[in-house]
């Protein structure tokens, strides 16, 4: 996913910009962006093993619980913040979104789409969705705030966040096709470039 994501957002990332990646994992995305765009990138991660991997790659990283610590870094002026597949795990996704747009000019958010048809079939049969993108049972999942593409865009509207660009990914990991025509039904994931 990370390598594909770097391809999608490459054109959104200015050369030599200052980037912060919330939930950066092992730092692969920042490493790609460093290679392609010479960004100065900081990762934010809570898992020690992933942090070790970031350091191994030479990617600066901060150990932080995003739910608790976003305010601490308000003074830093970033060009771009990234939150890939993490926003649905936060206690207050709406607050986090606004904070990200205060500490950076633009932000990239990617999220799994609960409106995807397979999820809907699961729900119609009376069960919480389990799909390749959302593989965990309801009691194990970290995803406490799942939403559909429509829900997310409505939130942006409500918070006066403008969507500068968006890309939808279908079940094969590609863009286009049916996911372009009706993303809320056919996209497994939405990738957004946001600004306020």
């Amino acid at each position: 996913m990370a390598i594909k994501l770097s391809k999608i957002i490459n054109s959104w990332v200015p050369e030599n910009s200052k980037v912060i990646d919330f939930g950066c994992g092992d730092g692969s995305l920042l490493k790609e962006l460093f290679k392609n765009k010479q960004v100065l990138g900081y990762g934010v991660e809570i898992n020690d093993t992933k942090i070790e991997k970031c350091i191994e790659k030479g990617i600066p990283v901060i150990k932080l619980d995003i739910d608790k610590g976003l305010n601490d870094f308000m003074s830093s002026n970033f060009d771009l913040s990234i939150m890939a597949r993490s926003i649905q795990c936060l206690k207050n996704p709406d607050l986090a979104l606004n904070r990200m747009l205060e500490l950076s000019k633009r932000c990239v958010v990617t999220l799994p789409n609960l409106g995807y048809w397979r999820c809907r079939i699961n729900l119609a049969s009376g069960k919480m969705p389990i799909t390749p993108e959302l593989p965990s049972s309801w009691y194990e999942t970290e995803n406490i705030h799942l939403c559909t593409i429509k829900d997310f865009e409505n939130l942006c509207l409500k918070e006066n966040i403008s969507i500068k660009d968006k890309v939808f990914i279908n079940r094969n990991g590609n863009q286009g096709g049916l996911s372009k025509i009706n993303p809320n039904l056919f996209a497994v994931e939405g990738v957004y470039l946001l600004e306020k």
Partner: protein
Amino acid sequence: MKTETKLIHFSEGIELESGKSLNSFDLMVETYGELNEDKSNAILLCHAFSGNHHAAGSSEDYGIGWWDQLVGPNKSIDTNKYFVVCCNNLGGCAGSSGPSSVDPSSQKIFGKSFPQVSVLDWVNSQKMLMDKLNIECWHFVAGGSLGGMQALQWSISYPDKVKKAGIFAAASKSSSQNIAMNEVARESIRKDENFHNGNYYEHNVIPKNGIKTARMLGHITYLSEEHMDSRFGRKFQDEDSKVEESVSFEVENYLQYKGEQFSELFDANSYILMTKVMDGYDAGKDKTLVEALKDVKSEFLIVGFYSDWLYPPERGKEIQIAAMDNNIRSSFVVLQGDHGHDSFLFNSKTYSNLITNFIES
């Protein structure tokens, strides 16, 4: 491990931050491993308050080195790959010039007349050592606590001479509470009847009780409440192994033992001087920390420990935020650490991996 211990004389002397100077001075230095041909593998370790030049391995005089858990062949800081340098800081009492050494101009023990030094003075004296060892750039400068302050100051004072800095369980300045603790320690030394206003050498005595009390207080601040509870709890000390008759609990016995042991090894004037160095440090003095870090080129690895209440992780975070404001490639990681402030001395898988990965990346 190839280890060399030597006393190096600096006949050129040094101007100190206070405006005073030393016409000449000595540094006790220990090195591990070998400098490679292009001199790119040198690492400087900066010791904390009561540490010394003996960082790794075992020596007759100082036992196991203070960072032996992390420094040595195939350890986190691998002496097979790196040439590791550590010196006893100016003002100390393990061989370098300090209050207990002889003033060359008067041929008398310095005592209280040894000038107050600072973190900046230490860094400047270590730079002179660096020149003497023909090292052009440190690959890594690291330390914990007061040692971390030196690593930070190195990157500020000599931006082209430090590639990477490891700042562990440290702060950019001491807090009011830190200063308060140190003042209680100093007061206990000064009020010892054998202190003689710092000139106890002439009376052939040492203010042992004062140093002991100071160290006992120090130990409480180095450990965490959790660690003390799990290690000692409310267990009573065996009658047979009591070091003092008055002792009831194991924790009392531990402090008595540690204090007693230390009081025979550490010089009282050095204790006072070292605590003053710690209190006096403020990387952002006369300006903000963000401004102070303006010219830094080093990469940072800042590590804090949750159980550390002397220099809690928030102090490290302050450095990280200032570093990010200056676009410094800086990482900040908080680890559990079971030993309170002392956690920086102990090996753990993550801590060790972080340091190794940082040096090697």
